[in-house]
């Protein structure tokens, strides 16, 4: 082709064709990874794990990694989800006729004996379970794991406390495959705490091998690699890019159906959508409501949403005026435009937060006293001495796409009752610091209590000494009720106490109650086996490809 023949149209057409050809091999290899090789599953996630040590890291990528690399002692039995027939979920209901009131099956433990007074439980471990380093599971591994929680006293410190354990000696090796947990006081969570994702069991033989005098708990090793009894091992990890997990041939339950998991970091949800639509990935995590809606009906894509343990709310700082006044807090709830938020922001993929604990957990009583009523809100403001309104600031996470539109809708609604709200956008990287410092007047928070128990949930957020009580809420009656629930195994007494506590908290409104967002699985339609967990993550070992 001579230069003279090169018209602008020809140039553009040929350039586009050449560029597309350059992209095709990359896309095809991705597609081949996703669809052509049945042994590989590619996941597009907001972030790769920052650390693999669940003692310190609570990032999204870490949850998925821990679930793949480690097993715990027990797990909940599964049941079909009522709204999504192709999905399973944990059976977290209360069963009076079952041990500990829970419907559980053994994982690393094959059986257990719970004392009726709920002060001692003995686990009998499975024999012949091997770690990814070829070491057999023994009671020493469980002992070392819990000693580590006491020793480091970070996130593990929460678990020792909530389990009712007072000292490392409370966890005793009774035999090569027998371990006991012994409490000073009855604790209703003595069994229920063990399926928690962040109670995995470490291969202590390997950990002791790599430990040093400066690092007796193998922090440096566990942060970057794994020593556990889970179905996968870490093949490689490039933080910020991808982590690759390989199925273990010698996993005690049999090798998982998917040989290899490629966990890719794709920070923008729009990009994750496009990758799923194009078949380059099998799962696209954490999409926005509009994107989820847009995926329905796309060929080869299945989108399922289920009620979840997530809650989103706005902390009203009880130590900062005017939110130290209970009528102001109530007014803020009466002024919240719930219906607008549910329809425009969540697109129907959430339900109103009409309680202060997950509505899928046993013991939830629900029935919020609040509805959108600006007149009632103004009345309460006047009663509190703020008939002219007031000014405040709402801080929101720049990294959560639903928080800004909710904040804007709330700001508009509050303007109607004379409350002038400034909006402060906090970078995602520093948002958690902003929450935990408890110095903001109003700030969003999204969380889910993993243990499906009313006492656990309520203690986490409303115990005056809880580190997660970010609203600085203090009520001695609630503290007393939480103490009752923590020190008895009588489920009737507990449910009664927790019911009262929920009523008090809803009435005193330490939060603006926003929503229960659903959990969504957006996946390649040939992927089967999804189970919903209260920790709101996936377990790679559940999946297979048709």
């Amino acid at each position, binding site marked *: 082709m001579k230069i003279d023949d090169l018209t602008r149209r020809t140039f553009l057409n040929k350039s586009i064709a050449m560029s597309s050809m350059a992209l095709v091999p990359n896309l095809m290899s991705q597609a081949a990874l996703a669809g052509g090789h049945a042994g590989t599953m590619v996941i597009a996630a907001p972030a790769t794990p920052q650390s693999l040590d669940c003692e310190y890291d609570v990032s999204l990528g870490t949850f998925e990694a821990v679930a793949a690399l480690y097993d715990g002692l027990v797990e909940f039995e599964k049941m079909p989800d009522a709204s999504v027939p192709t999905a399973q979920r944990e059976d977290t209901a209360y069963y009076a006729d079952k041990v500990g009131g829970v419907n559980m099956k053994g994982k690393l433990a094959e059986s257990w004996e719970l004392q009726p007074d709920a002060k001692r439980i003995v686990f009998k471990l499975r024999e012949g379970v091997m770690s990814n380093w070829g070491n057999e599971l023994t009671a020493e591994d469980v002992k070392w794991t819990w000693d580590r929680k006491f020793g480091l006293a970070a996130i593990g410190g929460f678990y020792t406390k909530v389990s009712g354990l007072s000292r490392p000696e409370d966890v005793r090796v009774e035999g090569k495959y027998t371990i006991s947990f012994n409490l000073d006081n009855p604790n209703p969570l003595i069994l229920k705490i063990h399926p928690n994702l962040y109670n995995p069991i470490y291969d202590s033989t390997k950990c002791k091998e790599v430990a040093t005098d400066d690092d007796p708990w193998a922090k440096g090793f566990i942060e970057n690699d794994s020593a556990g009894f889970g179905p996968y091992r870490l093949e490689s990890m490039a933080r910020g890019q991808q982590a690759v997990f390989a199925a273990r041939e010698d996993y005690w339950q049999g090798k998982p159906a998917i040989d290899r998991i490629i966990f890719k970091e794709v920070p923008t949800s729009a990009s994750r959508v496009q990758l799923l639509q194009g078949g380059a990935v099998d799962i696209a995590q954490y999409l926005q409501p509009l994107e989820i809606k847009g995926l329905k009906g796309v060929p080869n894509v299945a989108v399922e949403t289920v009620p979840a343990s997530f809650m989103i709310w706005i902390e009203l700082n009880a130590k900062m005026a005017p939110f130290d006044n209970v009528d102001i807090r109530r007014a803020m709830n009466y002024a919240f435009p719930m219906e607008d938020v549910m329809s425009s922001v969540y697109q129907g993929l959430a339900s109103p937060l009409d309680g202060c604990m997950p509505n899928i957990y046993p013991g939830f009583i629900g029935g919020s006293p609040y509805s959108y009523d600006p007149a009632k809100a103004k009345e309460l403001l006047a009663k509190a001495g703020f008939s002219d309104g007031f000014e405040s600031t709402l801080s929101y996470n720049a990294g959560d796409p639903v928080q800004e539109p909710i904040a804007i*809708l709330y700001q*508009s609604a509050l303007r109607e009752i004379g409350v002038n709200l400034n909006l402060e956008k906090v970078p995602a990287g520093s948002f958690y610091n902003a929450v935990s410092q408890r110095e903001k007047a109003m700030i969003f928070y999204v969380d889910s209590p993993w243990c499906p128990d009313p006492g656990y949930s309520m203690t986490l957020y409303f115990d005056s000494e809880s580190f997660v009580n970010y609203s600085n809420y203090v009520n001695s009656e609630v503290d007393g009720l939480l103490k009752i629930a923590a020190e008895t195994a009588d489920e009737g007494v507990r449910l009664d106490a927790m019911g009262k506590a929920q009523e008090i908290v809803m009435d005193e409104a330490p939060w603006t109650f926003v929503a229960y967002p659903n959990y969504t699985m957006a996946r390649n339609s040939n992927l089967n086996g999804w189970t919903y967990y209260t920790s709101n993550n996936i377990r790679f070992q559940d999946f297979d490809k048709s």
Partner: protein
Amino acid sequence: MTGKFNLFFRVLKKRPDFMLGYIIVFLIIIIAIFAPLFAPFDPIKSDAKNYLKAPQWPYLMGTDATGMDVFSRVLYAPRVDLAIALLGTLLSAVLGVILGAIAGFYDGSGKVAGFGSAFIMRSADVVQAFPVFVFAIAVVAVLGQSIQSLVMAIAFVNAPIYLRLMRSQCLSIRRMRYVEAAYLAGTSDIKIILAHVIPNSIAPLLAQLSVNIGWAILLTSALSFIGAGVEAPTPEWGSMISMGFQNIVTGHWWPSIFPGLALAVTVLGFALVGSSIEILADPVRTRKLLLS
């Protein structure tokens, strides 16, 4: 004066793109002043029942995810963007002119003055060594997110430009006979700088002002896009693009595209005006254009 206007219009006739630039800038200023008259809706009032409506009557540019009218917000945005850009650029010009005049006038002088001149220039080197955007983010991070800190960020990152322009003008003007005469007549340095040096150096700076205003609008929008600019839901083009960006993949293109177009056209307008001033300020280039 009539002669200057004639010259101006002859240049515009020769270069219709400059005319377009002036029309754009004029329109933007009119829109900024009279936005409350033109805008059909309150730009910060959300209306969830009309969220993400496509462009249609009465929402000429559609609505965003919270139901705010995009057209009204696009019209109100110049008030914020222009105000920040103008203030920031003027501040940078004042700062740059003063420091540049001092640096240029005392360049190569005796100990203290010469050291002062060198110090100013090396400080400008340090500021300009940082990528502009990164430096602006750092300034906003230190001063906190507010309109004032955006103005300061723009002033800091642009001041070295005027500083260098002024200095280079000073270096040649200080050797002029009339400056020597003023010096010999006993006029103080300050008076010489204010009365002779600055007025005779100003022309190229005026051209730079217009281009810089356009860039300052772009910088303001970029900072708002990443969340370091104005607070939501203040109508501002960059923050509107950021808020609407996540909706593009779901097919709702209008919350981002319309403010993006408005931003592009505005920056283009200021760039064209700046180019025209550059030619008008140079008689040689003006003559060359008119004779071409």
